[in-house]
C-alpha cells in the first residue's frame, strides 16, 4: 500500500546557491547553502515566509547544519572548516543569535565536517577528515570537549561523512568514507559496534527515535537497517537509482525519508519494509531531506538541494 504526499509549497530560490543542509523545528526550517547566510523560513505561517536571514554566517558557504529537537540550539559548519553554534534569542523574538564558541578541538581548518546535536542541544558531536569524532558539552554559555573517539583501526580515508546522536544523547553513530559505520557510547567513550560495512562512502546515518535501530545510506544506493540490541544487520531497502545523500526518521519511527542525487525523495515503511512513496520535483540532486516535527494532523517533510529551493510535502488523507 502506498502513501500519498502532495506538494504543499515550494519556496523557489530560497538561496542563491545549492542548499546543502536543512534542519526543522516545530515552527521553522533552517537552511544552509553555498552562500554565506543561514535562512530561516517559518513553517507555521502561510507561504512559509523567510523570517530571518543570518548573514555572513559562513563566508565560504555552509555544508552542515543541525538543530536540537527542542528547537532551541543549532550548530553549523562552513566550508572553511569553522564550527558555529546558535540559539534562539532569550528576548522572545524567536530570532536566532550566536551561541557559545566551540574551540575546534585543535583541528586545523577544513577538518570539522558533519555534526549532530542532542535533543536538548547540550551535546554536540562532529566528525573530522581524519575519522575522529569530537563530542562537546554545551551549557551555561560555554563549551567543553567531553570525548574524542578514534575509529579502532585508522585506515586510509576514514573521513567521517555523517553523524547522528541518539535521542537520549547516550550514543553517537558515524558513517565513513571507507564504508565503516561505528557506534560509540558517549559516556564511556568506547566503540559499541562496528557495523558491517556498506558500499562506501556512508553519506547518512540516523538513529530511530526509540534508539533501537540505526539506518545508514550512501553511494550503495541502498539503505541498510541495523538492530542496535545486538548490532545486527536486519534489512536493506533498495530502489534508489542514485547516491543517497540524506535520510531522516519520522517522529514515530514508522517511516524513513530518503533523498538521492537524482532528485528523488522516497518514503519507506519500516513495518512493510517497502517504499511507500516516491516524489521528485526536480532532477537536480537532493542534498538534505527532513520530516517536520509533527504539529498537526498530517505528516510533512521538506526537501532541498541543487535546485536551491525548499519543497514542502504534506501527507494526503481523506480528512485533510
Amino acid at each position, binding site marked *: 500500500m502506498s502513501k500519498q504526499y502532495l506538494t504543499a509549497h515550494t519556496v523557489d530560490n530560497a538561496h542563491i546557491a545549492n542548499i546543502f543542509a536543512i534542519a526543522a523545528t516545530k515552527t521553522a526550517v533552517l537552511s544552509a547553502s553555498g552562500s554565506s547566510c543561514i535562512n530561516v523560513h517559518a513553517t507555521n505561517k502561510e507561504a512559509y515566509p523567510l523570517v530571518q536571514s543570518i548573514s555572513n554566517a559562513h563566508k565560504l*558557504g555552509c555544508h552542515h547544519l543541525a538543530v536540537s529537537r527542542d528547537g532551541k540550539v543549532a550548530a553549523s559548519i562552513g*566550508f572553511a572548516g569553522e564550527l558555529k553554534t546558535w540559539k534562539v534569542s532569550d528576548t522572545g523574538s524567536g530570532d536566532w543569535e550566536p551561541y557559545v564558541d566551540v574551540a575546534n578541538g585543535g583541528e586545523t581548518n577544513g577538518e570539522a565536517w558533519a555534526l549532530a546535536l542532542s535533543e536538548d542541544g547540550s551535546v554536540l558531536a562532529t566528525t573530522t577528515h581524519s575519522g575522529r569524532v569530537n563530542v562537546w558539552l554545551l551549557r551555561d554559555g560555554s563549551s567543553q570537549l567531553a570525548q574524542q573517539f578514534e575509529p579502532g583501526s585508522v585506515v586510509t580515508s576514514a573521513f567521517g561523512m555523517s553523524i547522528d546522536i541518539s535521542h537520549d544523547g547516550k550514543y553517537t553513530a558515524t558513517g565513513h568514507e571507507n564504508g565503516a559505520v561505528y557506534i560509540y557510547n558517549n559516556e564511556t567513550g568506547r566503540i559499541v559496534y562496528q557495523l558491517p560495512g556498506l558500499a*562506501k562512502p556512508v553519506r547518512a546515518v540516523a538513529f530511530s527515535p526509540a534508539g533501537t535501530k540505526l539506518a545508514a545510506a550512501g553511494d550503495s544506493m541502498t539503505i541498510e537497517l541495523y538492530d542496535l540490541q545486538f548490532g545486527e544487520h536486519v534489512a536493506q531497502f*533498495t530502489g534508489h537509482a542514485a547516491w543517497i545523500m540524506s535520510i531522516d526518521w519520522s517522529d514515530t519511527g514508522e517511516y524513513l525519508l530518503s533523498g538521492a*542525487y537524482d532528485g528523488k525523495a522516497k518514503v519507506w515503511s519500516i513495518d512493510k*519494509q517497502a517504499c*511507500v*512513496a516516491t516524489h521528485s520535483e526536480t532532477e537536480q540532486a537532493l542534498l538534505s531531506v527532513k520530516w517536520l516535527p509533527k504539529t498537526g494532523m498530517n505528516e510533512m517533510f521538506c526537501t532541498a538541494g541543487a535546485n536551491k529551493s525548499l519543497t514542502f510535502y504534506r501527507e494526503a488523507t481523506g480528512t485533510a
Partner: protein
Amino acid sequence: MDHRRSSTTSSFDASVSRHGRASSQTLLSEDSQALFEGASGENAQSPNDLGQGRGSIIDRIEDIVESMVDSLSENQPLTLPLRSRRSGNEYTVSFPSTTANGVKKFTSLLQILFLCHEALVSGTIITKRNIYYQNPELFGSQDYVNKLVDDVAFTLGVGRNELNIVAASKGLVVGQPFGTEHGDEVVVIPPAEAVVDLDLRPIEWILIIEKEATFRSLVSLRYHEVSKSGRGILMTAKGYPDLASRQFIHRIHSTSPLIPIYGLVDFDPDGVSILRTYKHGSQGMRHEERITVPGLLWLGVKNSDLLELQMRLRPAAPSAPSNGGGESQATLTSSQSSNARSSDTLARSLPNSTRRHEAGWKLLALSCRDRAKAIRLLSTLSDQHHQDADEMELASELQLMLMLNMKFEIQAVDRAENMAYWLDERLSRISAWD
C-alpha cells in the same frame, strides 16, 4: 625540487597515475599556480617551502638591479655580472659601452633579467621564444636569446628551468590550420605571433584539454576532423598552461572571437584551477590581461556528468521508479552491492549496452591536498568583488566536490570512442543554447 608532490601522503594520490601532470615542466607550473593563489603557509603542505630556491633567485636578480640603481646615483657606469660558460670566469657587461655589441648585450641581458624576474614573481613559465618576441629587433635572433638565457642561468648557478624559462611551449595542438593537408599532424603550440598566418575560417570550435592522454586519444580518432560539430582544433598544455599556450589561445580568440572555445578538465580542484588560469590568468596579475580567454566555456567534467554516471552505474534495476508505487523492495541482505566508488568494477559488472556510452571516468575520494586546494580556491573566489555567473558556477562545483568528497577524472585512454560520443553530445547541447 618538487617537495610537495613527494610529500603528498594520501594513498590515493600515490596509487593514481596522473596523466599529463607528470612532466617536470608541468610540476613547475603547478607549483607556480599554487604560489599565486595566495597560499601563504596555511598548511604544512603549502608550496611555500618550495619557494626558497625561487625566492633566492628573485633576491639575487633584485640585488643586481639594486646595485645598478646605486651606480646610477653615484654616477658610475652600470654593470651586470656574467659568467662565461666556457671558462667559468666572471666578467662584467657595462653600460655605457664602447661598442654597439656591448650596448646590445647589456640591454638584452637587462631585458632577460626583467622577464625572468617577472616570471618568477608571478610564478609563470615563459619560453625562450616568448623572450625573443618581446623585442625581436633588439635580440636579432632566437639563437642570441638562447645563449644569453643559458649564460644568465650559469651566472646565477641554477638550471634554466629554475628561471621559469623553458625551451619551447609544452603545449600541443592539432587541426587543419596547423598541419598537413588533412590536418592530422600534432604540432607544438606555435608562438602567438604566428597566429596571423593561420587560416581559421574552416574552424567551428576549439577544445582545450587538460590531459595529454585524452588529447592523444581524440587525435587518434581524428575528432578535430570528424566531430559532429564540424571541424575543430584540439589543444592541450598538459596540465597547467604555460605562458606561450595562453598567449596562443588568447591570440586565436582575439583574431576570431566567434569561434567558441571549450575547456575539458577533470572534476577536481586542479581542473577548476586550470580552467581559471585560462579564463582569468593568475590572481593579481593585471598585466596578464592579454593572455586570458574569459569567454572559455566549461564543457566538463562537472557534477551533472556525475549524475549521468550514476544513472549508468545503478544496480541492475528492472525499471525506472515511478511515483508512489511500491516497486521498491526491502530485502534481507545476502550480498552487498559492489563498490560504487570504483566505476571500473561496476562497469565490468554491467551489460555492454549499459556502458557503451561511458566516456571513461574514474571516481576517487579527494585527498587532503585536494580538499585544502579546493578550500583555497573557494576562498579566492569569495574574495572577488564581482562574481560573475561563471565564477559562481566554479564555486558551486567546488562546494559540491567537497560535499561529495569526490573527484572525477577523465580517462580516455581506452574508451576514446565513448569520449567522442560524449563530446558530440555535449558540444551539440551547448551550441543549442546559443
